[in-house]
């Protein structure tokens, strides 16, 4: 399903990128919708709701922020929570960085602004083989963000009329996509071990209550285990 170059179909890179983003769109529309509903309930204006989807563009942290606005939390606490929740992107950006060395800084800025978990998952899979054309990369990102903004807007307008994202299993679109992307990432046995151990670690840390840091801590330890395994198996 990874559409790349696609000589057979003769598709333009833009179309390929848009098609590639479809699983993300399926997940972003309903979750963006849920965010819009929450933002409406938190009495954010339509402008603020859409502004957040445009310039913050980070799913889970926007849902959390809407809840914090609703609870009347002060500015600094909302900003700090957002920072901590989104800090994991530092690791994702670092993982993709070596592939972008030929891009001018301003294009890296545009790329980074749309580097969500899902965009990262799609790109890291592809960049590993070959970095596709910039048109395709940005088509993936812009299509994804557009669906997020449209979802937010619709959710805000629909308000509390319809809040059930569970119909049609829409709530499972992103978990299922992550399952596929995780499996596709795995190239050798050490990666299976790292995936299993990191997953268990993340579950354990979350149960211990370190929810916001669980992903970052587990990832750092997990990737380090990978390095150790590599050193071991090469001897």
């Amino acid at each position, binding site marked *: *399903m990874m559409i790349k170059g696609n000589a057979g179909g003769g598709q333009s890179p833009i179309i390929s990128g848009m098609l590639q983003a*479809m*699983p993300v769109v*399926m997940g972003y529309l309903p979750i963006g919708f849920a965010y819009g509903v929450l933002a409406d309930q938190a009495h954010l204006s339509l402008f*603020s709701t859409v502004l*957040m989807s445009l*310039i*913050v563009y980070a799913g889970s942290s926007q849902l959390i922020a809407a809840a914090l606005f609703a609870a009347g939390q002060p*500015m600094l606490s*909302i*900003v700090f929570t*957002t*920072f901590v929740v*989104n800090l*994991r992107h*530092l*690791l994702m*950006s*670092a*993982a993709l*960085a*070596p*592939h*972008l*060395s030929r891009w001018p800084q301003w294009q890296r*800025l545009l*790329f*980074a*602004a749309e580097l969500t*978990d899902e965009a990262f998952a799609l790109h890291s899979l592809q960049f590993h083989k070959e970095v596709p054309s910039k048109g395709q990369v940005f088509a993936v990102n812009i299509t994804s963000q557009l669906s997020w903004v449209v979802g937010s807007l619709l959710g805000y307008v629909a308000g509390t009329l319809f809040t059930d994202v569970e*119909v*049609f*299993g829409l709530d*499972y*679109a992103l*978990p*299922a996509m*992550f*399952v*596929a*992307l*995780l*499996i*596709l990432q795995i190239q050798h046995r050490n*990666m299976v071990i*790292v*995936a*299993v151990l*990191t*997953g268990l670690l*993340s579950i354990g840390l979350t*149960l211990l209550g370190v*929810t916001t840091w669980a*992903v970052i801590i587990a990832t750092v330890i*997990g*990737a380090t*285990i*990978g*390095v150790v395994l*590599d050193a071991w198996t090469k001897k």
Partner: protein
Amino acid sequence: MDEKMIWLTIVLMALVTLIPRLLPVWVLAGRTLPPLVITWLRYVPVAVLAAMLAPVLVLVEDGQRLDLSWSNLYFWISVPTFLVAWKTRSLFLTVITGMGGIALVRLFL
């Protein structure tokens, strides 16, 4: 909070979100990194995806409780979802399996 303060909050949220996303692609790209760091970075995608996914599948009540009973559909539907991902290596079929599986079970239970 008045409207102006909300806008300021959102702008600051955007900044603290952008900086971690931007800094590595801005600073690290183009540098020759030590081989050990490269190896470490190669494991980041697998590790971070597993770290984000695993709690979603097995924990309930906002991550407070482990639930592997039949009522945790997220976990049980992930079994065929993983199988389809592994066998077909297709993003599309995997997402359809997961969403369809969840929708069907909800419909009939």
